[in-house]
C-alpha cells in the first residue's frame, strides 16, 4: 500500500534546463511533504519541505509546488547542474504521528 508514489523511476535532463520531479500521495491527512536527495553510498539529505497549508515553497534553485486537490507535488530544479544527478525521494508525514513515509525515488541524470 504505497501512500507516496513516484511513478518515474528515472529522468534525464540537459544541464541548464529545468528538472521537474513528480510525486503523488493518497493520504489527505499528511501535514508536511519533504524532498530528499541521495547520492550512492550516502544517506538521504534533506532538500526542501512544504506544509500542507501552502502551495509553494522556494529555496534557491529548488521550488516545491503542492496541489492538495490533486494530491500531487512536484520539485522544480532550475537551472539543473551536474551535481544534481542523484536519486530524489519524495516523503510525507503526519503531524500527530512522527513517521515519515517515502516514495520509491526518481533517479535524475543531468546530461552535459
Amino acid at each position, binding site marked *: 500500500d504505497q501512500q507516496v508514489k513516484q511513478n518515474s523511476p528515472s529522468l534525464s535532463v540537459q544541464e541548464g534546463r529545468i528538472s521537474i520531479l513528480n510525486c503523488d500521495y493518497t493520504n489527505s491527512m499528511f501535514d508536511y511533504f519533504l524532498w530528499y536527495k541521495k547520492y550512492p553510498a550516502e544517506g*538521504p539529505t534533506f532538500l526542501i519541505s512544504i506544509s500542507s497549508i501552502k502551495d509553494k515553497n522556494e529555496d534557491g534553485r529548488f521550488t516545491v509546488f503542492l496541489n492538495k486537490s490533486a494530491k500531487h507535488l512536484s520539485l522544480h530544479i532550475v537551472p539543473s547542474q551536474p551535481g544534481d544527478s542523484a536519486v530524489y525521494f519524495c516523503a510525507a508525514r503526519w503531524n500527530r504521528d*512522527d513517521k515519515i513515509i517515502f516514495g520509491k525515488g526518481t533517479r535524475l541524470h543531468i546530461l552535459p
Partner: protein
Amino acid sequence: DTAVSQTPKYLVTQMGNDKSIKCEQNLGHDTMYWYKQDSKKFLKIMFSYNNKELIINETVPNRFSPKSPDKAHLNLHINSLELGDSAVYFCASSSMTGSSTEAFFGQGTRLTVV
C-alpha cells in the same frame, strides 16, 4: 562533525549470526528512527523512539530489537540473521518540537548476509 553517525558502514555476516548496528546523533534531537532500504530501493520505517521510548514499531520480525540507552543513541540488534535481512539500514533523527519537520539521516549500514 557528523550529525548522525552509524557504525559499521559495511557488515558481512553468515546466516544465523547475531549482529548490532550502532547509531548516535549530536543534534540534540528527541526522536530517532531506523529505516530499511531493500533491494527494490524502498525506504521503509522500522522503528521510532522518542525520548528513549518506542513510539513506532512497524511490522518487523521480533528478531530485530532496537535499544535506546539515551536520547542520543539508538542501536539495532538483529538475532538469527537471514538472507532476506540483506539491505541498507539507515538511522535518522528529528525533533518533534520546534518548527523543523525534516529528519537527518546517517550514511547507512550495508548489511550482507551470506
